[in-house]
């Protein structure tokens, strides 16, 4: 009978349960998406050329962070569930249900809701993971190996984690409800929040918050000095710093505004600010999480997208755009397709493991190379001539590597044309190509390399240092990183936006009463709506802004990995603003439906 009653309770509050379930699903979905990469060593090893140890440490911290955030999220979800049900359970107790039975009922209800939510989230996660992966790969033309949208260890760990959380939540709920007096369960609507705070303490908290953030930002920039320590230091200081900042500074600003009646007394502004103050107190933790997740998501996408600087670097590191070493294949068709700027031929002969180069061909087109140097700490390249004249006897290694046999000969010599003629060996040619636009001709240049490689596999090693091959390698590394960055970015994004959305919507029942009161004293609907847009808008904007600051400083961390982490930063920001804005619109739409329309 009691179970039947409990079920009827669920039916009658469908809207609230819808909010709860979508919240739970979003949590398990994003958790699964993260684990899908993090628990797949094959994927990490084959796509992330960073050293597996390094990546697994980073992902380890990622899992810990996500677990903490999910845990906080679950506390909110659970509180929402409890507030929804406590009246019903109070009534059952009033009707004579025994405490132990009620405790069991609550425990089971929490667990069942949790399992259903997780299951739905993970199943939806398969689809979303597949779709997101496909979209990224297709849009950016990436190549990804060992990636599975359905990955069993990730499914398993997601379930283990969430079931543990719900066991905990269930035990907590049954303990809490069974201990509370019936009368409290029936009447408890909202606990008054203590609003007084000592101004000196608030000031200290604000300063401490700023100092901690500064330490965190420094730790990110000082990666070279602190190495892997910089991650935990930054993590702790930035999380705590953000919390203090939200807890003190923002509320002080609102209080300050509320004391300026010139500013305060305008239409519904007193109400909007009052709501915000209450909300911020209650939201401090969630806003902190959201700002951190915002930074992680935006950072991941920025880093992901900026990995093309690796490709650019690959391009800058070699001087010539292509090379032809063999006459065994017919390359006329391909060559005619190229937009050639210059074609340079060098003649050479190999006599008993010695390389001889015709000086005349060298003098016509002195060979060049790219030299690596640091420009203001940024990795750069400049063009320089390869000096061969002063080393007529023995040429430099660099010079040797201009020729396919350079890897196997013992030494190389530059000889005048007449002497070159006299050497008893067949004349060989190496032709270097320069095009007007490498990106445009890359497919043809790649084809030229592949054709030659197939015809003469012995020279594969030589090709390793040519531009199309180096470029291809950069592209592959980049694919892994770009994919991972954008994929994780989107997963974090979903997590943070659903978290915020859930928190806002879970406040709807108590807000409904407030909006009704305002309507009774003559506030127009349009005014109520505007107040709501502003209030929720600020709740979205504040962690967003702090998140952006986190990212701008945090990108320093990646300087050793990507030469220009701030390159074209507006692209990820734009993507993010669009997605985040979309979530905001959905939230106010739902909220409007739950609070103002009904």
């Amino acid at each position, binding site marked *: 009978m009691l179970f039947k009653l409990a079920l009827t309770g669920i039916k009658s509050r469908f809207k609230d349960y819808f909010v709860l379930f979508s919240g739970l699903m979003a949590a398990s979905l994003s958790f699964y998406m993260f684990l899908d990469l993090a628990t797949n060593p094959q994927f990490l090893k084959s796509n992330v050329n960073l050293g597996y140890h390094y990546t697994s440490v980073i992902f380890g911290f990622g899992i810990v962070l996500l677990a903490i955030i999910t845990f906080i999220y679950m506390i909110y979800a659970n509180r929402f569930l409890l507030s929804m049900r406590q009246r019903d359970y109070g009534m059952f107790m009033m009707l004579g249900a025994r405490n132990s039975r009620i405790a069991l009922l609550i425990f089971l209800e929490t667990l069942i809701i949790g399992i259903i939510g997780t299951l739905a989230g993970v199943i939806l996660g398969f689809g979303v993971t597949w779709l997101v992966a496909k979209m990224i790969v297709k849009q950016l033309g990436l190549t990804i190996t060992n990636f599975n949208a359905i990955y069993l260890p990730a499914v398993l760990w997601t379930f283990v984690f969430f079931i543990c959380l719900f066991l905990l939540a269930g035990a907590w709920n049954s303990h809490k409800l069974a201990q509370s007096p019936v009368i409290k369960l029936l009447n408890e609507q909202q606990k008054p929040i203590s609003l007084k705070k000592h101004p000196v303490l608030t000031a200290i908290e604000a300063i401490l918050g700023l100092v901690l953030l500064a330490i965190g930002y420094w730790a990110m920039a000082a990666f070279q000095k602190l190495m892997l320590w910089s991650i935990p230091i930054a993590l702790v200081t930035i999380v705590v710093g953000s919390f203090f900042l939200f807890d003190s500074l923002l509320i002080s600003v609102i209080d300050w505004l509320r004391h300026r009646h010139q500013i305060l007394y305008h239409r519904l502004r007193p109400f909007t600010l009052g709501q915000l103050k209450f909300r911020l107190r209650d939201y401090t933790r969630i806003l902190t999480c959201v700002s951190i997740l915002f930074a992680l998501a935006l950072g991941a996408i920025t880093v992901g997208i900026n990995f093309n600087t690796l490709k650019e670097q690959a391009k800058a590191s070699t001087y010539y755009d292509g090379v032809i070493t063999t006459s065994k294949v017919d390359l006329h068709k391909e060559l005619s397709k190229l937009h050639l700027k210059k074609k340079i031929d060098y003649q050479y002969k190999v006599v008993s493991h010695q390389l001889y180069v015709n000086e005349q061909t060298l003098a016509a087109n002195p060979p060049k190379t790219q030299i690596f140097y640091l420009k203001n700490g940024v990795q750069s390249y400049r063009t320089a001539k390869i000096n061969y004249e002063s080393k007529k006897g023995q040429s430099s290694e660099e010079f040797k590597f201009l020729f396919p046999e350079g890897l196997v000969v013992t030494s190389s010599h530059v000889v005048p044309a007449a002497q070159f003629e006299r050497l008893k060996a067949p004349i060989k040619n190496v032709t270097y190509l320069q095009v007007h636009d490498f990106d445009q001709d890359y497919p043809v240049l790649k084809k030229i390399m592949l054709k030659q490689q197939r015809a003469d596999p012995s020279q594969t090693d030589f090709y390793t240092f040519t531009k199309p091959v180096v470029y291809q390698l950069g592209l592959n590394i980049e694919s892994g990183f770009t994919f991972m960055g954008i994929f994780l970015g989107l997963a974090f994004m979903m997590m943070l936006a659903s978290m915020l959305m859930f928190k806002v919507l879970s406040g709807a029942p108590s807000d409904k009463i*407030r909006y009704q009161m305002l309507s009774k004293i003559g506030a127009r*609907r349009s005014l109520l709506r505007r107040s709501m847009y502003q209030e929720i808008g600020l709740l979205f904007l504040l962690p967003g802004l702090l998140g952006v600051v986190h990212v701008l400083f945090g990108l320093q961390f990646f300087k050793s990995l990507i030469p220009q982490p701030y390159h074209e930063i507006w692209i990820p920001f734009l993507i993010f603003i669009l997605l985040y804005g979309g979530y905001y619109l959905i939230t106010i739409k739902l909220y409007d439906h739950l609070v103002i329309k009904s």
Partner: protein
Amino acid sequence: MNPVMNVEEITKTYGKKGEKQYQALKGVSFQVQRGEFVAVMGASGSGKSTLLNILSTLDRPTSGRVEINRKDITQLRKNQMADFRGREIGFIFQEFNLLDNLTARENIALPLTLRGISAKRIDPLVTQIATKLDIMGILDQYPVSISGGQKQRVAAARALVHEPSILLADEPTGALDSNSARELLQTMAKLNQDEHVCVLMVTHDPFSASYADRILFIKDGKISHQIVKGNQTRRFFYRELLDALGTTSD
């Protein structure tokens, strides 16, 4: 003289056509004159809440008309209704209906800010009404930290700060202890006498009703009869009221 409120033959029927219908109001008519304190009494289910909802523009009658300050409020559109409420009507509810996230001062100022009155004029108006209701000392406190009686005074201040044409009170003493209730009623009577604030109070409590000049009795969706205080003292009026209740409940 024009009445502040003119109610003509209003009916209210719940339930759609063809389904089982229930008529909560069956043709109610009365007038409230300027400066009058009128109480509407009735048992639960008599239709007094429905009547109050219609008078306060929160609900529409099925037929009939309600004029407040010569304006037919049954013909207003949504925004007009909201504006009308904000301008012409002050409310006091049984459960206070204060916004818990605003201080008493902000709660009182709200009807003024909603009407777009400049900030400069708001502070003196709030101080003025707060002095009259003796709540100056608690203006910067939140509803959660003040007593029920104080809450209702704050609610009354909010209802009166914009000088509405009529004050509608719905069981204003329902959630108060007897002392607070008496104090609130005395204040309302005083405001009515000194400031000529027009009051319409719905209640089922004879003691509260005895503070009015005239009492309308509502029963089964109709006004059954009324009694007028005239020149008699409140104590005699109270006795007459109890007698009237004794006869009507038979």
